[in-house]
């Protein structure tokens, strides 16, 4: 068996098995995230939420998926066909391949690469293409306006996100995600770097086009933004991709600031719970905050969104980066 796993074919088979073991639960999680979102929003608004299909409405996501599959795929006559079909695939594919480097527990990553943080940053910065291509290929004004908004928004917030990541990396001294988590064994980074944690979380909201920054799909003025023209499975792929991106961003927050698979305190009953469960619990907490924010805050105006990104987050995160570097240098805590 070990001999087979060392051959190229064996390595391939092992990688495929690992990918399936990660992606199948991920897609299930996406399905139940849509259910959880509707349920939490409903409870926050004193409603009941989905409660008809299955017990507590638990089968609702599958009913929705089935409905989506049964619908007709419509490609607008003025659309750029190839790009129109490609855009949802880009969004969905990028949301999936980013998971290749996420360490669920110590050593539990499909690819434990040296530049894991950069890989994630690169993939998340590519997400804008799915949106922009969809908006352009639809040949519709609403879709195009949504795509332009999204492009500007994602590029703006990436800059401050980059500075936040650099600040964390300064404290770690490695670009490897497993090392980032290991550096938080004694203290999670959200305590010493609390302002950066807040900025990163808000930027993650903007990066995933979530409320209160969901202007690219603002239904009150742009109908549904960049995916107005999409129906059936192509719409479903966008939907899956967006929710998978939410989970990915939560995982990134967990890895960078909330100590990955470590329990809050290394004391007896907490250490009995295995690492992956801590990781999942932290992701669930972040996702709850995502939904909580959506239920609480009104949508930003577009100029306020840009102002927040460029005039508040960017200078502040730059200042905090320099401050962190100076403190680390002066106290000699800079990792070798």
């Amino acid at each position, binding site marked *: 068996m070990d001999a087979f796993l060392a051959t190229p074919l064996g390595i391939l088979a092992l990688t495929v098995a690992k990918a399936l073991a990660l992606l199948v639960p991920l897609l299930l999680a996406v399905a139940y995230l849509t259910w959880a979102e509707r349920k939490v929003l409903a409870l926050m608004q004193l409603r009941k939420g989905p409660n008809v299909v299955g017990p507590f409405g638990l089968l609702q996501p599958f009913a929705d998926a089935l409905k989506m599959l049964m619908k007709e795929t419509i490609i607008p006559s003025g659309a750029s066909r190839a790009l129109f079909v490609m855009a949802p695939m880009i969004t969905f594919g990028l949301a999936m391949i980013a998971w290749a480097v996420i360490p669920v527990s110590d050593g539990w990553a499909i690819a434990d690469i040296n530049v894991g943080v950069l890989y994630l940053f*690169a993939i998340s910065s590519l997400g804008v*293409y799915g949106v922009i291509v969809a908006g352009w290929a639809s040949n519709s004004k609403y879709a195009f306006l949504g795509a332009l908004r999204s492009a500007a928004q994602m590029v703006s917030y990436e800059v401050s996100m980059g500075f936040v990541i650099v600040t964390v990396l300064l404290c770690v001294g490695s670009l490897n995600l497993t090392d980032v988590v290991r550096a938080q064994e004694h203290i999670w980074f959200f305590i010493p770097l609390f302002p950066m944690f807040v900025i990163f979380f808000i930027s993650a909201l903007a990066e995933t086009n979530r409320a209160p920054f969901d202007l690219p799909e603002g239904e009150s003025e742009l109908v549904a933004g960049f995916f107005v023209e999409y129906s059936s499975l192509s719409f479903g792929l966008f939907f899956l991709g967006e929710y998978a991106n939410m989970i990915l961003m939560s995982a990134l927050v967990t890895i960078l600031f909330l100590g990955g698979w470590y329990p809050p305190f290394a004391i007896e009953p907490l250490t009995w719970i295995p690492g992956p469960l801590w990781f999942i619990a932290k992701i669930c907490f972040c996702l709850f905050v995502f939904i909580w924010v959506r239920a609480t805050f009104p949508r930003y105006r577009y100029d306020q969104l840009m102002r927040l990104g460029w005039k508040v987050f960017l200078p502040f995160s730059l200042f905090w980066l320099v401050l962190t570097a100076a403190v680390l240098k002066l106290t000699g805590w800079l990792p070798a």
Partner: protein
Amino acid sequence: MIAALAFYFFAAILIASAVMVVTSRNPVHSVLFLILCFFNASALFLIAGAEFLAMILVIVYVGAVAVLFLFVVMMLDIDFARLREGFQRYAPVGAAVGGVLFLELLMVLGTWRFADDAASLRINPTTPGGISNTAAIGRILYTDYIYLFQASGAVLLVAMLGAIVLTLRDRPGTKRQSVAVQVARDPKLVETRAVALGAGLDTIGIRRPLPPPEPPKKVEHAADHAADHGGHH
């Protein structure tokens, strides 16, 4: 073997998409092919073992530069028929320029000599043993050549300041927005009350029907204040 196959695969796609950048009729398609080019170039970096450069290429060029590029190209209103009109007229000039460039390239390649130790340098990785190439690049940029690096940063800063100075005009009568004023609550106009948790449920008709409406009271309205609400000044 596999690395060689992968190299030829990515290199072939890179060259093919580079050709498509130049030849495709639609400028948006050109930019998308350019992005495909960047991708394959970063794959080649990966094969060469330069994972840091590969990721930076994707982040900087694909994630930022090409997005802005696409942004601009998509908003251009290009008439493709008129674009093709001049092709016949300019074709000889273009062909002449291309021919000259081709001849020059031939002359360069004809007299090209590799350095004697080029082959051995190519085999040995340039990073010292035990150091990841991220650390190696960092050491060169920020330790060995820090002054030159800072100087290039200063040049870019001057360019940025120049662009801002050239475009920034302070015209009289421009309306400016003060967000702080706009979102601030004026305590004279807004009253805040602390409501106990769940206390509202009994009075808004969810737990029991609403009580009969009270007789209307006289409320002093601050209607004239509404005019100066907002942030324009």
